[in-house]
């Protein structure tokens, strides 16, 4: 059994990488969904949201197939990485990313759609291209939903279990994340060790939430309204 510390570090690494992927990808998709009209918009929406509708284990099997040698994507991955991605920490990060993406996209879309388009129009008129406008106006104004989405995504990635264990296995020191380790320990009847990691999970969750609230406060200069209606 590998040490708690290494499990925690691995979990953290996987969740961070997963979030590092979901945030930009999620933002792009959310922007498309919130601001653009195009054919296949609903299909994109469905595709991104699917992992939420499916039991994680099924997502895991689907990913296992995807990275397998039979698929185009799998053979591409194999030629890039030298071997299949399955059962590596990259697969774990992929699973975490896929599973948390719907949460991120949904939160981001709602947040972006809530921004008053007239402010974007005003920014465009001041010479700011659509790219810059997005980053200086839309995104900061959508900050609540964006931060909430990032939190949801990161925490979901940290606690991801079902899909990960299928596509990345449960290999101590290589792909065994905190949830997998907790599951293993519970199954092995080692409830003390399971408890330790559970408490770590809780602490990580609390830390993520505290960071979330801190970020919210940091950017909440937006609404320093003084209305105090009894």
């Amino acid at each position: 059994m590998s040490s708690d510390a290494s499990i925690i570090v691995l979990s953290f690494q996987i969740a961070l990488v997963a979030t590092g992927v979901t945030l930009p990808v999620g933002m792009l998709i959310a922007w498309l969904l919130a601001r653009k009209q195009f054919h296949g918009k609903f299909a994109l929406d469905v595709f991104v949201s699917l992992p939420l509708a499916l039991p994680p284990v099924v997502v895991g099997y689907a990913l296992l197939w995807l990275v397998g040698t039979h698929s185009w994507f799998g053979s591409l991955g194999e030629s890039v990485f030298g071997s299949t991605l399955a059962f590596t920490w990259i697969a774990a990060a992929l699973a975490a990313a896929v599973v948390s993406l719907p949460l991120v996209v949904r939160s981001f879309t709602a947040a972006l759609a809530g921004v008053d388009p007239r402010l974007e129009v005003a920014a465009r008129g001041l010479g700011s291209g659509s790219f810059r406008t997005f980053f200086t106006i839309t995104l900061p104004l959508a900050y609540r939903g964006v931060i909430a989405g990032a939190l949801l995504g990161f925490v979901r990635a940290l606690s991801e279990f079902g899909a990960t264990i299928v596509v990345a296995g449960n290999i101590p020191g290589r792909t065994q994340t905190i949830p997998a380790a907790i599951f293993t320990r519970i199954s092995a009847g080692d409830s003390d060790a399971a408890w330790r990691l559970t408490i770590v999970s809780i602490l990580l969750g609390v830390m993520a939430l505290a960071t979330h609230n801190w970020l919210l406060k940091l950017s909440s200069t937006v609404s320093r309204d003084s209305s105090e209606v009894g």
Partner: protein
Amino acid sequence: MISFDLRIDRRGFSFDVSGQFDEGVTAVFGPSGAGKTTLLNCLAGSMRPDSGSIEIDGENVYSSADGIWVRPEKRRIGTVYQDGALFPHLSVRRNIDFGWKLVPAEQRRLDPLEIVELLGLSDLLERMPSELSGGERQRVAIARALAISPRLFLLDEPLASLDVARKGSILNYLKRVHDEFKIPMVYVSHSVTEVVSIASHAMLIRDGSVLGFDRPSALLLTAALDGSSVERFENILHGVVGESTDQLTTIEIDRISISTRHQNKNPGEKVVVSLGANQIILAPSEPNQLSARNVLKGRVKEIWSSNGKVFAEVDVGPEIIVELTESALNELGISVRSDVFLIFKSSSVDVFDA
């Protein structure tokens, strides 16, 4: 030079406006819901008309026929929106900086610091928009739009909630900006006095159509005769400051001079004078012993009457239009080519920087 031809169909409102604005200041009048904001939005590129075209300085920025559409950020048009549209998450300073930073240094012609100073915003720079009063918000919107040294400056009732003193000083500043940098301006307003002093052209819109487009005085006359769109007719005269006493300042206009309230101006300064047609009294012979400081002799050139109102154009050197009643006209026996005297008070004359 901006020429445009714009058509929009909304349920219950159809908009079909075309015209040309030169490098002067164009005032746009019209009742609520006439389509004034719509016009500005189309020019700025924040609204896309159903069809038509827009050309700015020879560049086609919109043409439905040729499928041309220059994005708003490429037009460099400064717009002051009716509701301000300040960025709520940025401080006043950063609102004003926003567009300025994006202008290449060599194209910057206005100094944000000076703008801020002149609009009385220096103490508010670190405030958030939610912490501003209504009038303060409008001033920030003006500053933000000016800061990009626009090629064309669009103002949608920018002074609506400002007090007289501020209105005057901001108008004078806008005029200076205009004169110095020759930035064409389009100025939407309900207040004739507000605009008359600054505009070289005026457009009257109602129900999405242009009712008139002319020099302000000519347009105002039409509108005043019609009676519904403007308060009153204002004579606009260009002159230079003459001498001043403690209480009075004379303004030289063509061959005549006019007494006004004391102005803080140096002799020789160019000014624009506005004089309400309804503030002038006509007399067939020279009156004596009146408190009115201005008595000008002239000859009636033309008389219009409509809706019970009568306007007489009198040549006193410049031509001045006087509003009077039919009964007065008849009683005094005034007709075209009569010699008459115009009488008005120094306090009836408003003086603006030219």
